[in-house]
């Protein structure tokens, strides 16, 4: 089956998931993002690539950081940005998702940035829209969050240069995390030899080993000699039933403290997709400490989203 994200010429026309994307497509996005970083340091922080185009942010699930960084990215590309507040929109009046999309297409939307609680929502929209419209998945259920995976990969490449000798540990709520899934895919595509997930059994999806990761339940073992530590947010809003005894208990075993970080390599970097729960998955001394690259991740995220939008918009 052809990859629904690529057009007949093999160019990226939607970004739905990183799974199965050719390595050169990912490297092209990361390289392009590097060129966009400088734009934000100029007097005029805009380039004219998407001038006259309309980008619709369709967020069916709440988000501040991701929506804002997509909005900034689109505006720096000179696009017009329309944010749809879905809580007050027609879906509440019974309109279906695809009817909403058809109506927005009739308003000449060129690009849709979609976040939805349902896995596969962005795929459904991408199959539905015409060939000149582009869809970016900004997170669908537990499935994928490709621009987060790309900005994580960009951050790792920025600090560590090469993936071919890295050990990367992803810690915490893997079960509910589309961030973890997208990161594992991109790390595998870029040839990272050692990807580890560290979590209690109850926060791991069944068959997680089939993604190509090593599983650890003991954080101290899992962090040993790591180059990169990616902490995930404990997604209590998605938890049904007692997966965990308590947040304090979780912090004791899986919270990243300076002492546990000491087991990783001396120059290890600490990442977090945000928003952080200080004192639950990460200690403030680490979040604000010298190993933390959590704020640069946000800055890189804008450049990565500019790269994705400008590549899609040109196909």
């Amino acid at each position, binding site marked *: 089956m052809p990859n629904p994200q690529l057009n007949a010429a093999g160019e990226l026309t939607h970004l739905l998931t990183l799974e199965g994307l050719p390595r050169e497509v990912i490297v092209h996005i990361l390289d392009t993002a590097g*060129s966009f970083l400088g734009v934000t340091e100029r007097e005029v922080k805009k*380039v004219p690539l998407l001038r006259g185009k309309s980008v619709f942010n369709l967020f069916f699930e709440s988000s501040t950081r991701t929506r804002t960084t997509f909005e900034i990215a689109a505006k720096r590309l000179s696009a017009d940005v329309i944010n749809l507040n879905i809580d007050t929109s027609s879906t509440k009046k019974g309109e279906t998702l695809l009817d909403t999309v058809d109506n927005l297409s009739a308003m000449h939307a060129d690009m849709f940035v979609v976040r939805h609680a349902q896995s596969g929502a962005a795929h459904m929209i991408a199959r539905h829209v015409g060939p000149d419209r582009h869809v970016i998945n900004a997170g669908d259920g537990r499935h994928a969050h490709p621009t987060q995976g790309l900005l994580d990969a960009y951050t790792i490449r920025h600090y560590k240069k090469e993936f071919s000798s890295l050990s990367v540990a992803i810690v915490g709520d893997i079960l509910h995390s589309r961030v973890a899934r997208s990161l594992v895919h991109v790390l595998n595509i870029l040839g990272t030899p050692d990807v580890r997930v560290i979590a209690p059994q109850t926060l791991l999806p069944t068959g997680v080993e089939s993604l190509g990761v090593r599983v650890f339940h003991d954080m101290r073992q899992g962090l040993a000699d790591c180059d990169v530590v990616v902490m995930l947010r404990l997604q209590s809003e998605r938890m049904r039933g007692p997966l965990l005894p308590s947040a304090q208990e979780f912090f004791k075993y899986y919270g990243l403290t300076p002492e546990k970080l000491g087991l990783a390599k001396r120059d290890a970097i600490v990442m977090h997709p945000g928003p952080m729960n200080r004192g639950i998955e990460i200690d403030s001394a680490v979040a604000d400490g010298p190993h933390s690259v959590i704020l640069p991740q946000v800055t890189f995220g804008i450049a990565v989203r500019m790269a994705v939008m400008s590549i899609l918009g*040109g196909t």
Partner: protein
Amino acid sequence: MQLPDAEALCAELIKRLRPVVTRETAMVGIHTGGAWLAERLHRELGLTVPLGRLDISFYRDDYHKSGLHKSVKASQIGFDVAGRHILLVDDVLYTGRTVRAAMNELIDYGRPEAIDLVVLVDRGERQLPICAQYSGATLAVPKGAMLRLARDETGTLTLRLDA
């Protein structure tokens, strides 16, 4: 066809630019051939303002037709553009569209006092009202052929014509 010697054209440009440049003159080369030429001119003229480089991919007017260029390099302008006299350097002046894009990008860094265009070869066939203040040679090249600058491992510049 017989192509002019790029090194001789380069020497001629240096001779003509020497009386024009001052301590305040800045130079910006357009990737890739223009940046090579600019590196040479900048060094030979002993300019002190750091050399700038532009990749105009984000300003091309054929983006909606051809998409984003496959290998975009970061533009580097390490000086304050505002109020500056800038020599904008490219290897070949043809339709004028690259120069238009480069001027738009430069002005997004600030408002220069003036921009002068320096090219090694002017091959005519302009599609925009743009002309070079300093040009090494004027050359008629068959339509569709690609004239470009090449640089070998010793740094020697030569002109190449690709059919």
